[in-house]
């Protein structure tokens, strides 16, 4: 029996180890100065020590966390509200929700392009304000995209994230047993109370999954920050890219050290978040 399980899992475990684990191992090794293109070196932690002295890195980390948190939280909130609104529609009309698939299909590069088209200082919104006579030069339009605020990136992530959250949350909601709600209402619960104690608890697992996936994706993603081109301070991924491709080989371990820290953060975050969500769930049930 046990033999069978291992055999059944082998087609996945082999490539998992050969590609994912091996790739990670090499990232880790190079961050410690081993197996570099210039030849094998000696194991050292100096590149990690260098990270703690790098002030720009702190700013990049802060921007990455900021963008990841607000884009994920906004997407989950927006997706939940949209899912609830669609849920209230008659099933035939509910099909209009299919347009949200556009956001899922458009690649991140294209979504970032849309943000550029709409919100750059010479973009469409700026043009509209000019025609309305509210501004007279492009410079008067607030510089949203290149100030290091991350706002443009958050908007781009939202356009991808809202339909994703809608998909996950809608899948639970549209299959929801309506009798549960009717019973709650019959027993005298108001609409708010019904939502709070009957509907929401059943949506929470999907909301948590959506949040964790979107948060970690935005945290480590490259495409959108690259197109929207903010580099002072850039997202962590842009910083790694710059060190990796635009500086000399001797700095590569530093890029790998940042990547290792990002991996550990993502793995630990996913684990702790899951624990936390399960704990909160158990605690709420006790009440």
């Amino acid at each position, binding site marked *: 029996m*046990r033999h*069978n*399980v291992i055999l*059944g*899992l082998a*087609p*996945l*475990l082999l*490539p998992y180890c050969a*590609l*994912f684990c*091996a*790739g*990670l*191992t*090499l*990232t*880790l090794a*190079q961050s410690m100065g081993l197996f570099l*293109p210039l030849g094998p070196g000696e194991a050292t932690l100096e590149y990690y020590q260098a990270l703690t002295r790098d002030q720009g890195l702190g700013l990049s980390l802060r921007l990455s966390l900021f963008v990841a948190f607000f884009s994920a939280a906004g997407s989950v909130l927006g997706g939940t509200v*949209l899912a609830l*609104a669609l849920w*209230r529609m008659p099933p035939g*009309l509910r099909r209009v929700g299919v*347009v949200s698939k*556009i*956001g899922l*299909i*458009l*690649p*991140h*590069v*294209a979504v*970032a*392009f*849309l943000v550029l*088209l*709409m919100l750059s200082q*010479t973009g469409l919104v*700026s*043009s*509209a304000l000019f*025609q309305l006579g509210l501004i007279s030069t*492009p410079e008067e339009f607030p510089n949203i995209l290149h100030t290091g605020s991350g706002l443009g990136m958050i908007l781009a992530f939202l356009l991808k994230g809202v339909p994703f959250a809608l998909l996950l949350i809608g899948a639970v909601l549209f299959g929801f047993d309506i009798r549960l709600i009717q019973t709650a209402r019959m027993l005298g619960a108001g609409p708010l109370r019904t939502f709070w104690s009957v509907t929401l608890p059943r949506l929470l697992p999907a909301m948590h999954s959506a949040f964790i996936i979107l948060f*970690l994706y935005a945290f*480590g993603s490259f*495409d959108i920050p690259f*197109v929207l081109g903010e580099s002072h301070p850039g997202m962590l*991924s842009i910083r*790694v890219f710059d060190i*990796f491709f635009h500086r000399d080989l001797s700095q590569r371990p530093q*890029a*790998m050290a940042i*990547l*290792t820290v*990002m*991996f550990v953060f*993502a*793995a630990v975050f*996913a684990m702790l978040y899951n624990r936390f969500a399960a704990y909160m769930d158990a605690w709420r049930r006790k009440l």
Partner: protein
Amino acid sequence: MRHAPTMLVLAFLFLLPVLVLILQAGAPGWRYPELWPELGLDGVRFLATRPGPFLTALTGSLGYSLATVVLTLSMTILPAKALAYSSFRGKTLLEGLLLLPALVPAMTFSMGLHFIFIKIGLADTAPGVILVLSMISYPYMLRALTTGYTLMGREYEICARNLGASKWRVFLEVELPQLLPAMAAGGSVVFLVAFSEYFLVFLIGGGSVASFTGYLFPLITSSNRGLGALVTLVFLAVPIALFIVLELGLYRYHRKRRMR
């Protein structure tokens, strides 16, 4: 119209961008501060006169994305069954570990993997790109198939085996038809992930693997917004066309089976 606000929000979020893309594609010279573009067909004409690089990029992306779907399917079909039907110690941990490649930043392992690929000659090749794309996308296929197996249950398989069908025949005639929706769902996500990835194709493919994202990228960062918008629209149309074909195919397949 109680539901008008919802419709407006949906239209604003998802239809307006497409409208902007269509207008921009039809008006390459659309510039600040004009609000209404002067339409022209320069972009279409440009693609029609020099279709070579565009078609190479499109077929390249389609090719490695479909190959990624096939590879992830063959990687996960047996493991999904094992995960759905057997319980063993450390199963939850293993499931968590197997989800990691889709959760952690792809850069973290792909940059190390790039170095290995250079050493073994897989860098700058299509197989290398397919392998790395499979790594970031298989968790979606695994999840879909595991759910599919769990929903199906073992009864059909046991029954068919008792009636004397071989393992292979059980898979083909009993399990496969019931798993098709799960495969289609997982395959759609895997295709989208592979088709829209820019960075990994750029890193592992190194410019010698033609990709649609790689073709689009210089267009949208340069001043040629009209052509960029046109290519983005194709980007939207190709997956939609594929999904429609897939839906129709599944529908006809099921109707045929029912008639038999």
